[in-house]
């Protein structure tokens, strides 16, 4: 059986690897972006000079031949499912028995005037990175539009080369659709202390042409004109599925798939950023452009392709990111606007770059989520507490076993407990210490 996979990102590659583990089928991975799998999340580090492109490849080049995974560089223009055939730009054709679509995302553009000018780019692909590089020499200011994770990464990239940045964010506080207000304010402060010109509640109105087809300035919703040599469009991403419009594969926002990642056409599957779940699990969105969901889908689809039906279930919500120097982790349900039956314990370090937020259910006293800034927590421990709906008293007394900061770091769990004691009129004391032994015992229990 020949399995073709379009897209060599984390989803497609994970699928290929697991199919190889499970079977001897012929596997072809197709990409027009790069010859080999690289970690998209590390693109920023290439620009910042932390890593070379070669260092972003999780597998050495011999890996693919050794595991009999064929790599094909090419751009698929059409999927002809009646003949089980792919049509490439340039006219080449390829037969498949099963097809996995893992085409990822593309940057959003909302019809701004001038959005297709030169020096206007998103930050998603290797080609975007090259464009940034090309326009960086002698760049005197960059404007970034859209305050999400990619926007702040782009700001950090330019900042690393001492290029001044103006950061236009539609919301009144940075990423406040996701982060609770204290954390949102903290990141806002941190962006400003890095000398980024953060303009909140400001949108892009127009990008100005310098007369030669290149962007030279932007005009904001407040009417201000900002001169700049580069405009970064980072207002989110959407599934990269344009080429499938006439294919007969059902498409809404993304490629519509059931629990087994099957599309409406037999033998065609979709995974990763480009897939849209018909029945997302409670608390999850239909389209999730996240690294680990792509990886989980890749693994799940491999079983389904190889004839062992397994439903996709991403489990409890978690995520992480880094905003300049502040690391961010979240486990469980943490909403920007807390549900009415929830209560939060929030502790913030006096330096304003660290915080711990623990959220629980007021009525049942069950733990529901953790939100962390500048502090690392252990995934497995948090997950077990959340899954078992542990009582918040128990969690806070044992909180140290969740701490994943390096050795000798100051622990702050007792301060969280102190705040809780005051709030709830209790007198609880810490019961456990940080470290693998206690965490392991808990996980085994």
């Amino acid at each position, binding site marked *: 059986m020949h399995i073709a996979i379009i897209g060599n990102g984390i989803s497609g590659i994970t699928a290929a690897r697991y199919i190889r583990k499970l079977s001897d089928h012929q596997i072809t991975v197709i990409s027009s972006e*790069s*010859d080999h799998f690289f*970690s998209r*999340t*590390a693109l920023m*580090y290439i620009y*910042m*000079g*932390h*890593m*070379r*492109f*070669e*260092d*972003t*490849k*999780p597998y*050495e*080049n*011999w890996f693919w031949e050794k595991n009999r995974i064929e790599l094909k560089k090419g751009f698929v223009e059409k999927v002809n499912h009646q003949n089980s055939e792919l049509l490439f730009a340039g006219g080449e054709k390829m037969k498949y028995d099963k097809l996995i679509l893992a085409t990822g995302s593309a940057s959003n553009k909302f019809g701004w005037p001038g959005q297709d000018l030169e020096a206007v780019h998103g930050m998603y692909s290797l080609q975007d*990175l090259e464009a940034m590089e090309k326009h*960086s020499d002698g760049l005197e200011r960059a404007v970034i539009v859209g305050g999400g994770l990619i926007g702040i990464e782009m700001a950090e990239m330019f900042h690393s*080369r001492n290029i001044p940045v103006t950061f236009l964010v539609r919301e009144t506080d940075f990423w406040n659709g996701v982060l609770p207000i204290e954390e949102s304010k903290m990141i806002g402060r941190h962006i400003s202390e*890095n000398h980024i010109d953060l303009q909140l509640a400001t949108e892009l109105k127009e990008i100005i042409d310098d007369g030669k087809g290149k962007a030279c300035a932007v005009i904001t919703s407040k009417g201000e004109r900002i001169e700049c040599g580069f405009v970064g469009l980072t207002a989110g991403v959407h599934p990269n599925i344009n080429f499938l419009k006439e294919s007969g594969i059902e498409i809404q926002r993304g490629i519509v798939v059931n629990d*087994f990642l099957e599309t409406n056409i037999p033998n065609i599957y979709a995974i990763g950023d480009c897939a849209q779940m018909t029945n997302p699990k409670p608390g999850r969105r239909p389209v999730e452009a996240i*690294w*680990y969901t792509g*990886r*989980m889908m890749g*693994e*799940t689809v491999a079983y389904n392709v190889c004839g*062992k*039906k397994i439903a996709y*279930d991403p*489990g409890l919500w*978690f995520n*992480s*990111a*880094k905003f*300049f*120097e502040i*690391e961010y*982790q979240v486990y469980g349900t943490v909403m920007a606007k807390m549900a009415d039956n929830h209560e939060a314990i929030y502790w913030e370090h006096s330096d304003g770059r660290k915080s711990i937020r623990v959220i629980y259910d007021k009525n049942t006293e069950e733990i529901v989520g953790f939100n962390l800034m500048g502090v*690392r*927590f252990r*995934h*497995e421990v948090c*997950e077990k507490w959340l899954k078992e709906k542990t009582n918040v008293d128990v969690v806070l007394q044992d909180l140290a076993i969740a701490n*994943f*900061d*390096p*050795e*000798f*770091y100051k622990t702050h769990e007792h301060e969280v407990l102190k705040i809780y004691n005051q709030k709830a009129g209790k007198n609880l004391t810490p019961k456990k210490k940080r470290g*693998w*032994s206690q965490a*392991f*015992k808990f*996980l*085994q229990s």
Partner: protein
Amino acid sequence: MKLIKNIGLALFILALTIFVASLTLSNHTLTEAVLSKNISNTYHQEMIKQQAGDLMGKEFGSNVAFINAFKPVLNNSLEALDKASGVDRANGIWNAVPEKLPKGVSENDYRMFPNTVDDYLFSLTKYSAGGLLPGNSNWFFLLSFILAALGGLMYLLPDLNLIPGIKNNQIYDSPATRGITFQVRMIFLGMTILTSILMVFFKYLLIGILTIAAGIFIIYRIYKTNKENNVSFSKTRKATAPKGLGWIGISFGIFLILFYVTLYFFPEYITNWTLMLDPISESLSGNTAGRWFLYGFLYTMVMFVMGIRMLIKYRHNNYQLIRTGSVMFFQTAFAFLIPEFLLRLNQPYMDFKNAWPLDYDFFFEIDKMYGQGTEFAIAGWATSVGTMMFIWGIVLTLIVVPFFTYYFGKRWYCSWVCGCGGLAETLGDPYRQLSDKSLTAWKYERYIIHGVLVFAIVMTGMVIYTYMTGSSNILFLDSYNVRSWYGFFIGSMFSGIVGTGFYPLMGNRVWCRFGCPLAALMGLVQRFQSRFRITTNGGQCISCGNCSTYCEMGIDVRAYAQRGQNVVRASCVGCGICAAVCPRGVLRLENGTVDIDNRVTELKTVHVKSINFKDGAFSLEGNEV
């Protein structure tokens, strides 16, 4: 801020220039006073005077001219004394004929030997110096050593104004730290090997031939590895690959290599540096400064300044702060000051933290431990202090090292105590990203480092045999020769010239990764029976590769992290940088007893459906249909 940095850099470059130039700023005249002060042996003194003839009292414009003139004089003196004592190599007479020696004088007191020639050449060059530098050595000390340190600190301290966090911006764009392309690396290896061959040809033909063979093999291997991993995505991007020449790095590497070659094999050319350090050496040990004092002083100072750099860079990270403070302390106290004080107290020179086989002199020359750079030797082990040291050496090696490694992993030594590790973690920190992460490199690493370990074990066994039986021949090998091979190949070439000189070329832990026998030994303990491991944090890894890039030991940390697997590797020195640079908080260095036999977990399945945490491994509880 930028201005202060630039002034600091300028001062450092100025000081470095003065430092190098100071080697030429002397003229040399050998007077009778210098001769009698530096050579106490009257037979040698007389013979050298006789052989020197007109050259006595003559002024030489540079140390090179002086050495060119007096090296033959000293060699002729050796020959003449040999002849006078009845040695006749042509006719197979290798030892002195007792009747020909003056009455009551032993052969060793009468004859000169090659190492005597080396010692005399060093001290005569040093103390025959006059002119600008010797007359103003204190000023030159301030303008080179101290000014360089101050310039360095001025360059580093303004970084305190930056927001604490990972600061690796533009490492791969800088010509100092970007590394080199593999062609340049091959040229480098070739040149280093060629230099060593030229040097060795003067002494041992066999070793020269072996070196050529090893060199050709290394070059072939690097060529082949690079061909296997050929870069196929070849579009050039500023930070894609070391496109330009890392010329500052290359210059720095060449400087270090030349420094080590001179220090080990031609110390007579750098006597002016030791002249500047005489006051300090005398105040510490009471002796004048020899080349090893120069080396120790420089080493400690560099580690101190670059240690401060490390402390500033990682001031948000307590593990790095404490660890760096620890290596700085052990270098200053144990490697530098305590041995000097021991000499002052007329005790054997000893670095109490050096276990077998790093301090091989200690085990192999237990009956004659020399004070550094001086002529006085003490029958160390016969004294009570010497006995204590000998016992401490054995306890350290057989009990302390395995015990601590069991509890904490080899990091307790390699990145908290060791001098080589200390230099690698301070001076070498800007180069940690240049280590080779390929599977091929790992394969060769295991062969080479365990090869050195076997070499060290065999050598120790032979020395003990010789010590017990008095016979130096075992099968076809002479235990003395094996030791000098080890000293040349492992001690000088590998740990010094390649180990440090290759920082900007192949990363900062070349010696620790490929050569150190103690690291190999502790690695075996760490791999098979230790509480130490690096754990990974569930499904948070995004495969970005920062951990692998900044692993100085060339471990592909990402390969473990992205599978949720614990890192249990013999080579890991526990520097903790992988955990520090991880943007998602995925890695943690930990010690744990609860699962000591299950540290090497099977890959936790990434698709965490529900955690089934039995026997230390996750397993998939899928909802099969």
